[in-house]
């Protein structure tokens, strides 16, 4: 990766989910078998829990966002601007909303246009919401054949809800 610029990510760190699942402590009494039984049930629930799966994915997306928040100018080697603080914060906000709705993107990616995009893909359908340094917000939905659908949005809460609704409908419909 190109040189990393100094960037204050404290505000991101504050927002980061810090709760960790507690490790189970082995008992010292004869209840070991009971403990093993319930421990197995808990482990099974952890592996199949939609909530915990979303939390793991959310953590990974946050890690990506923190990385991209620290990119330097010309990070793509073709002269791209580093993501602005405003575009990083906007992405952080939409990630929070998506987490609440249990509908996370596949990736968070820096944009060569200057900014950050959240990227959704299922089968041959793709949707993304790109927050530009310029303040523009672009929603795009497309597949491998048809003319892409492009919608220009604002950073208001209403447009965040609209974007999530449109992408969800597009990505999940048959």
């Amino acid at each position, binding site marked *: *990766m*190109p040189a990393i610029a100094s960037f204050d990510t404290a505000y991101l760190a504050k927002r980061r989910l810090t709760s960790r699942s507690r490790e189970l402590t082995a008992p010292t009494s004869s209840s070991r078998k009971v403990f093993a039984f319930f421990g197995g049930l808990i482990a099974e629930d952890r592996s199949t829990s939609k909530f915990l799966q979303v939390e793991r994915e959310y953590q990974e997306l946050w890690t*990506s966002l923190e990385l991209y928040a620290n990119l330097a100018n010309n990070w*793509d*080697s*073709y*002269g*791209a601007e580093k993501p602005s603080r405003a575009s990083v914060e906007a992405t952080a906000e939409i990630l929070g909303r998506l987490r609440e709705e249990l509908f996370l993107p*596949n*990736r968070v*990616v*820096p*944009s*060569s*246009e200057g900014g950050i*995009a959240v*990227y959704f*893909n299922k089968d041959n359908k*793709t949707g*993304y919401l*790109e927050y530009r340094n310029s303040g*523009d917000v*672009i929603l*795009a939905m*497309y597949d*491998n054949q048809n*003319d*892409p659908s*492009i919608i*220009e949005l604002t950073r208001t809460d209403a447009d965040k809800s609209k974007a999530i609704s449109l992408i969800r409908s597009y990505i999940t419909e048959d």
Partner: protein
Amino acid sequence: MVEVFDSDEFFYRRYSVAHVVNGNVLPQSITFPKPSFNRSKFSRPEDVLHADCCDGQELLGWGVLESKVSDLRVSAQSGDDRNFTTYPKHVPKQTCYAHSELWCASPPLEDAKPSQTAKEKLRILLSRALKVKIPATS
């Protein structure tokens, strides 16, 4: 400067690992105006990663995308019905003779600035045309 592009000529562009997902090139790897490429008439795919073509930068782990130049001639319409079409232009640099760009025309302009909507469509159409030639590793 060699303005004619052969029908089987390719364009190459470098990319970092974040910009390809499941083999699909993301539009976020492309910027307007005039995204840069190396043309195959004067370079090999790996040359696009050479420091001479990267303003002296060493880009370890980066990969290379490719497309036939003819597939990068794409068009998109803006909301006010103007049509924008990309076309290749050889723009040699002092240390990278193969350097070329995709310009955007909207008659009668040969160097037009596409609207926001048209630009985004062009980015998507270009990303569809690009394929991984040399995979990025980091």
